[in-house]
C-alpha cells in the first residue's frame, strides 16, 4: 500500500522569501506524484505533477517540485512567496500501475506573512 508523509503541519515564511513544503512517499514501483492546493471551503486545485523525465517539474503560480528517487521525496518549492500563496497544500501519490486513485498526505498549512 502507498503512503505520503508531510512532516510539517504548518510552514511560516515571510513574503518575498523562498518557501519549501516537504513531502516523502512510499509506493511499490515507480511513482506518479502530485501537489494540490486547497483554499478555505474549496476543492483541491492541481499545481503540478511528476510522471517521468526531468526531476525538476514546474507548475502553476511559479511553484516547482523536485523528485528525488533515492530519498523518496517530492518537495514543493517557490523562489519568492506571496501572501496569496497562504493555503493548505497536499502531496499525493499513485503507483505507475494498478490503483489510479490518489493517496494524499495530511496536508501542510502555508502561512506567508506580509
Amino acid at each position, binding site marked *: 500500500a502507498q503512503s505520503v508523509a508531510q512532516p510539517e503541519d504548518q510552514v511560516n515564511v515571510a513574503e518575498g522569501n523562498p518557501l519549501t513544503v516537504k513531502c516523502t512517499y512510499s509506493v511499490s514501483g515507480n511513482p506518479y506524484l502530485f501537489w494540490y492546493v486547497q483554499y478555505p*471551503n474549496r*476543492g483541491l486545485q*492541481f499545481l503540478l*505533477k511528476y510522471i517521468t523525465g526531468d526531476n525538476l517539474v514546474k507548475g502553476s503560480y511559479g511553484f516547482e517540485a523536485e523528485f528525488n528517487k533515492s530519498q523518496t521525496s517530492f518537495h514543493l518549492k517557490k523562489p519568492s512567496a506571496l501572501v496569496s500563496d497562504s493555503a493548505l497544500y497536499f502531496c*499525493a501519490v499513485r503507483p505507475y500501475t494498478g490503483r489510479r486513485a490518489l493517496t494524499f498526505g495530511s496536508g501542510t498549512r502555508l502561512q506567508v506573512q506580509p
Partner: protein
Amino acid sequence: EAEVAQSPRYKITEKSQAVAFWCDPISGHATLYWYRQILGQGPELLVQFQDESVVDDSQLPKDRFSAERLKGVDSTLKIQPAELGDSAMYLCASSLGGPQDSYEQYFGPGTRLTVT
C-alpha cells in the same frame, strides 16, 4: 474552463436521516472519484468509477454508503442512515482515463456535510 460540478455545497442533516450528493464531472472524463476529507486530514478515496462501472470501492462503508453512475456521466453518492462520524467534506474528482489520460485529477468544490 471546464469544471467539476457538485451539489449541494452545504448540507446539514440529523443522524439516521438519508442524504445524497451529486457530481457532474468534466465532459469526456471517463474516470470519476468520490473522496471524503475529514477536517485536518487529506482526502481518502471512497469509490472510483470507470465509465459506469465501479473499479474500486474497497474503502466504501457499504452498509450505509452507496454510489452510482448509471449512464457513465454524472454520479450520486448516498448515505443512509447518516451518523455523526460522517461529518466531513465530500469531494468529487474526474480524470480523462484511458490511453489519453494526463493523470491529474480535477476536483469539484465539495459538499460540506454536518450531521447533528
